[in-house]
């Protein structure tokens, strides 16, 4: 298996649901690099991804679509470019309950700008059901402001159908 084969990259802040989303799609249990959280992440969850998550979808002809999840903390951003090399597209997950999801969105769009311009992206807003309903519009405003042709969907990262819809949307814009 080569890291340059067909792959979709999942990114977003800590606790946005990247590992859960990859788990929904992967044909095999996700290989993670989760460790006990010791920093501010501890407020959100006990374990956090420090290198990457990995899963895959095996197609009929034996070809693989690799699913890589970036670590959420931006101090690991040296990993991002490596993971994106040869990627097909980006799935950005944003937690609607975070203090400023629009700012999170803006940050990640800027960080992955080259990759998005080269391929395509889709944004999934998670936990929208327990956040106020202005979050979608706030994220959408960032997209319009930056001129990105990116679909935005509210999803439950634990729900297989929701995550599939996200991938369908990504495929449509690639």
């Amino acid at each position, binding site marked *: 298996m080569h890291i340059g084969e067909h792959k979709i990259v999942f990114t977003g802040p800590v606790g946005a649901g990247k590992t859960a989303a990859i788990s929904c799609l992967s044909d095999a249990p996700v290989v993670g690099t989760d460790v006990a959280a010791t920093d501010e992440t501890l407020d959100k969850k006990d374990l956090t991804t420090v290198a990457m998550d990995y899963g895959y979808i095996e197609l009929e002809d034996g070809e693989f*679509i690799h699913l890589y999840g970036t670590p959420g903390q931006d101090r690991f951003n040296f990993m991002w470019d490596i993971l994106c090399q040869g990627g097909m597209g980006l799935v950005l997950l944003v937690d609607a309950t975070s203090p400023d999801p629009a700012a999170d969105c803006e940050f990640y769009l800027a960080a992955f700008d080259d990759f998005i311009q080269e391929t395509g992206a889709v944004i999934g807003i998670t936990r929208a059901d327990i956040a106020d309903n202005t979050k*979608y519009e706030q994220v959408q405003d960032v*997209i319009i402001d930056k001129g990105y*042709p990116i679909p935005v969907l509210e999803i439950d990262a634990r729900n297989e159908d929701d995550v599939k819809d996200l991938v369908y949307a990504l495929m*449509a814009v*690639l």
Partner: protein
Amino acid sequence: MRSINLSLLGITKQDHAILSVAIKLVDVPGVELIILPDGAPPTGDVILVNADSDAGANYLKQEDTIQTKIIIAENFTLPPLGSRFIERPVRIHDMVNAFNIACERFKSSTTSNIEIGSHSSVAANKRTQAEANNNTPLLLHEFITACTKNSLIKLECKPYSPLFINGISRSVATRATLPEIHIIAKENETRLEMTALSAADEYEQASSSGVNIYPINTVIWHTALVGSTGVILPEHSNDTPVKLKSMPRFPREYMRKRPEFLKMSALLTRKSMTVNQLQQATQLDIKVVTDFYNLIFALGLSTIDETANTAELYQKKKSKNSSLLSRLAKKLSATG
């Protein structure tokens, strides 16, 4: 007295109970509804089908059946042309409405033309022969008119409940269900007659019989889902360049039924294009592109860009992964 035979396919005991009451409430003068024995071959003029049963599902798979179907199912499915859909739990008045409409159809002559009230005469005059086969562009036109003029409109769509369109609150009040609005949009047998209501109290009084209040965007999405068979909105042209102001907020049912709409949305946020250019860029059927144009305009998401170069050809960037993407889509749908 015209007799209409009703066949039953796979309906449950509870459906039978509702049917026995509903049949007594069907009120179409000059028509008698006769129920054929349960289990008999489905040879009636109208077939009441439980789509969730094996017999019903198998029957609906046949493409050569010409009878009017009244389909009962747990989840919404778009009924074939001329058929009705009733969502479970089945209510008596839903079944009565479906029978009344089916009987009216048999009773009346086959075709009636769409008639639009006086203030829509410009739009009506511009209709082509093709438009007469589908109400979608005209319905969307009325929604746009109401919203842009902040006006109140009553749209008669006999034999269905009228649609009361409120352009101020951007809502539609009606007794018609969303599946019925689909039917109004996609058929030409429904007469459309528009009346402008002059004041809010007149609107309130008129729409008081409406039991459903839908956000207008919901109705627009549902109407556009049916499709306009490639007929552009009245007063619009295939050569008008437009640009998207923002990506549409696609309802989930659109995601899988109209993935090409996402593709076109992405293209139109990058660059202004006409319907013809968009068709060229995507190589999609012109009908699909026109439906998309109508939808985004009705939702107020597009803006006309007169500065765009309409002569320029869009150079399609062929995705190197297109074969891979189609195989991925196949895999995802197979495991769905």
